[in-house]
């Protein structure tokens, strides 16, 4: 339910920003807003149902002033405050980013490995997934020693697991099920 609400607001914001040709700026505004909204104290204040409409507006104005938001984004935040949807800021930013990525023909990928990959390896992986998806791949890397070896690529929720840990688990499952593993 909250996901669909955030998606609707994100679509509305995206349409406004696209029409005004400020998609990148709007995305930046929303990312900063999401970062602020993720702070526990701010999140609690945004989700507080006891705040009056005036208090919510004041809170929205204060955040907008602090972040020096553009007028369009400021208006959007006020609309969220009026409808008691300030707690949806994180979800709205996520959906907006996906809409923007789709609009720009790009996908985001997380590349995990047991040891840090050099840039050439990352480029090889990016090239493979760019060819596979037909889109530009924006990759970010992370190191997870528990993977033991190999890589895991998470691209828009679809996971390609090439880790040694996964292969060992597959081997262990084969042993447990009594299949030949030689």
């Amino acid at each position, binding site marked *: 339910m909250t996901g669909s609400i955030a998606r609707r607001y994100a679509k509305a914001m995206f349409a406004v920003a696209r029409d005004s040709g400020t998609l990148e700026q709007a995305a930046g505004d929303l990312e900063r807003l999401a970062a602020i909204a993720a702070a526990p104290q701010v999140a609690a204040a945004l989700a507080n149902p006891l705040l009056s409409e005036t208090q919510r507006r004041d809170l929205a104005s204060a955040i907008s002033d602090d972040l020096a938001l553009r007028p369009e984004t400021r208006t959007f935040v006020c609309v969220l405050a009026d409808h008691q949807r300030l707690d949806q800021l994180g979800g709205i930013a996520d959906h907006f980013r996906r809409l923007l990525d789709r609009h720009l023909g790009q996908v985001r990928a997380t590349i995990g490995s*047991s*040891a840090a*990959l050099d840039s050439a*390896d990352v480029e*090889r*992986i990016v090239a*493979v*997934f760019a*060819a*596979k998806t037909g889109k530009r791949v924006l990759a970010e890397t992370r190191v997870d*020693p528990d993977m*033991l*070896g*190999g*890589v895991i*690529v998470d691209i828009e929720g679809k996971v*390609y697991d*090439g880790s*040694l*840990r996964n292969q*060992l*688990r597959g*081997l*262990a*499952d*084969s*042993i*447990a*099920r*009594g299949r030949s593993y030689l």
Partner: protein
Amino acid sequence: MIPGRRLFLALLLLQPALAAASEASGHGEHSGMATPLKLALMFVNLGLFVLLMRSVALPGIRRWVSERREMVVDALEKAARAKREAEKLQAEWKQRLANLDAELEQLRNQARAAIAAEREEILRSARTLADTIARDAQRAAEQELRNARDLLRAELARNAYELASKQAPQHLTSADQRRFLDEFIQQVSK
């Protein structure tokens, strides 16, 4: 009855006259004239008595005799019927007694056959039950064996995984990592 009634009335009317005449002649008993009158009076009295008995007592006696006769006949018929039934019953019992041995033997044979059938049924049920129990026990044992085998395999797999997880970082080289990456890219590219 009408002639008898007339005779009775005549005798009844005649009797006082004869009685009076006999009384009158009683004074001259020695003359020998009184005896016929007395005799006639006795006959008249006797006739009256007979007629009286005939008209009054005789019908009752006849009716009593008739009823008595019917009772006796009825009792005789009942006795005859009872006798016939008793004879018939006696004949039946004689017949049954004569067939008693055969009947007893037949009953014994029937009882033996029933007991044998019951015994066979009990044995058959017992065999079926024993087969079922043995089959269930075998299935349970096989299932236990499978469970134990699965547990053993799972334990073996878990130990193998843990051992490999511990050993892998120490033995994996950069060449191995490169090979993993190459294989991954190759698989994804398919």
